[in-house]
């Protein structure tokens, strides 16, 4: 598995946020968990539009935090959903959640 975090991005972020890094991370954790919970309830066949938007949002914020694997997954779900091409296979929520947990763990370890 490739590295979970892009440290260059994170270092930048620490410089930007300063003491508020913790606040930012916690905000990210709760927001993203929220979205993942919503995704779990979606029907991959009929709600591709919504899935696209959610994946897009998750990708965006994760990238901002230098998270690599998770955001790549989100990106592929995003592009397929956008083209209305999402298959059940691609919509692998458990893998997604796994990546997310790993990323969060590492972030917590480093910055909290």
């Amino acid at each position, binding site marked *: 598995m490739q590295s979970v975090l892009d440290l260059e*991005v994170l270092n930048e972020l620490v410089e930007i*946020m300063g003491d508020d890094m913790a606040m930012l991370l916690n905000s990210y954790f709760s927001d993203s968990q929220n979205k993942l919970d919503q995704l779990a309830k979606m029907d991959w066949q009929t709600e591709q539009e919504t899935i696209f938007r959610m994946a897009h949002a998750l990708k*965006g914020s994760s*990238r901002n935090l230098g998270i690599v694997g998770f955001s790549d997954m989100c990106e592929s779900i995003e592009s397929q959903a956008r083209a209305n091409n999402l298959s059940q296979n691609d919509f692998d929520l458990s893998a997604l959640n796994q990546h997310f947990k790993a990323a969060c763990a590492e972030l917590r370890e480093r910055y909290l």
Partner: protein
Amino acid sequence: MKILIADDNNTERLILSRVLENIGHEVVQAEDGPTAITQFDNHAPDLVFLDVLMPGYDGYEVAEIIIKESTRPWFPIIFLTSLTEASDLAKCIDAGGDDFVSKPINRIIIKAKVDAFERIINLYDTVAEQRERIQFHHEHLVQEQEAAKKIFNNIAHRGCLESDNIHYHLSPMSIFNGDLMLAAELPMGGMRLMLADFTGHGLPAAIGALPASEIFYGMTTKGFSIPDMMVEMNTRLYNVLPRGVFCCVIVFDIDSLGHRLTIWNAGAPDSYLIDQKRNSIQLIHSVHLPLGIQSPQKFEINCSEFEFTEHHKLIAVTDGIIEATDHNSEMFGEKRMLECIKNASTDMSICDKLLSEVGIYCGELDQADDVSILEVGFPGKSNMAVTSLQDSTVTVSGTSDSVISLRLRGQSLGNFDPIPMFLQTLLACKELMPHRARIFTVLSELYNNALDHGVLSLDSSIKNDPQGFAKYYQQRAQGLKELDVGFVNVSVDHRPTATGGELIFELTDSGSGFDVEEIVKKENQNYSGRGLPLLISLCDSIEYLEDGTRVQAIYRWDHDDIRD
């Protein structure tokens, strides 16, 4: 700057806020389209970051709305997008965005773009402020010019320009092109006119017109000659006008009694003296620097004299007509002017003909409009009627019982014109005001006879042909210059009588006298000379004594006089 961020992604919004706050900007946040619009209305940000993909309104729609609603002429919109297709990026700009930033955001890029837009905003603000200042000053200027126009119209009125013998065209923008046209009746019959062209435009050009017209009207009614008036005008303008501003002028007298044109052109284009009977045109050139340049000490004026009768016309122009250009920027020029005048028939005024030719030549109306032309024919004979007294309650006043006496000798005869002074003193007696034209004429005629024919021994029959006029006045000027001894004594005795008053004019000259009877006989045939028939008609009595070197003329007036 105050910056609005509209992004539904909390993380992104937070990070971008912090980036912007770190570089000193104030941030206002919105989570979705509708909030973005409200925040925009409430906070009036200087710059807006819009996320393209938002629930509800997307970024493009928000952009459209805030642009339409905003009262500001321009504010920058930067789209936040992770879409990378060129078509998507182009859509950002098409939607009214000024730039886009790709996600994830890079703070260096953000700072660079925000700084760049800040420079543009500053530029915009500077321009807007300058435009406001210019607008303010412009309005001020327009107001000043309006006021100046009104003042100008009150003071530099047109005088007798509406007389039958005058045709003129004065450019509507004349005041502000510095063109001035003045006309006044001469106290002893005839008219004086002046066409002036002040350099420059606008207020500086118009200002010179005020002292010039004051002097013109003031001195003309008092009977001052052109040289005396122009000395005064040059001095005043020399003192008042800034260096580099001057006045080109043509000024002339038409003496209807003496059939004489006295003219002086200083710096203006040629004037044209047309003899319609003999079909000839005399060009009258500029012979002097324009007014306001020569210091009073060095100023010298020599007028030219010509015959001017019912079949003569004088055309004076400013350079507006010469310089009027056609589409090829070629000037109308003096050749064309001369041709046009030559070919003018007698049924259309030359002024109108010139105007129409210039109009055709230039093609558009506005060039021809910038033209000033004065066309003067022979004035109707002044009827010498006694006008009514304005204030009839005045009875005995001023110099009603007085003797004024002056002897001018030698060079003073050429250097001083005593008529205005006498007139002014006499007219201190207000009852004489209705008689001023007659008194002026009597005194002028008597004095000119004494000087020209008495002291200088000039023969007025020289004036009987056109060249003769110039010759006569040349001889006169020469005679005055060389005068060593010789004198004219003028005395006016004003006495009250039972019903009014009596003016006794007595003039003595150092000449050799003349045969009164012979002259009277000659003059009953044509008028040129001592004007005896006229004097006889105006005075109650006239007597020549001492071989014609002394004359006594009596003019009586009554309180209730309205003679014909």
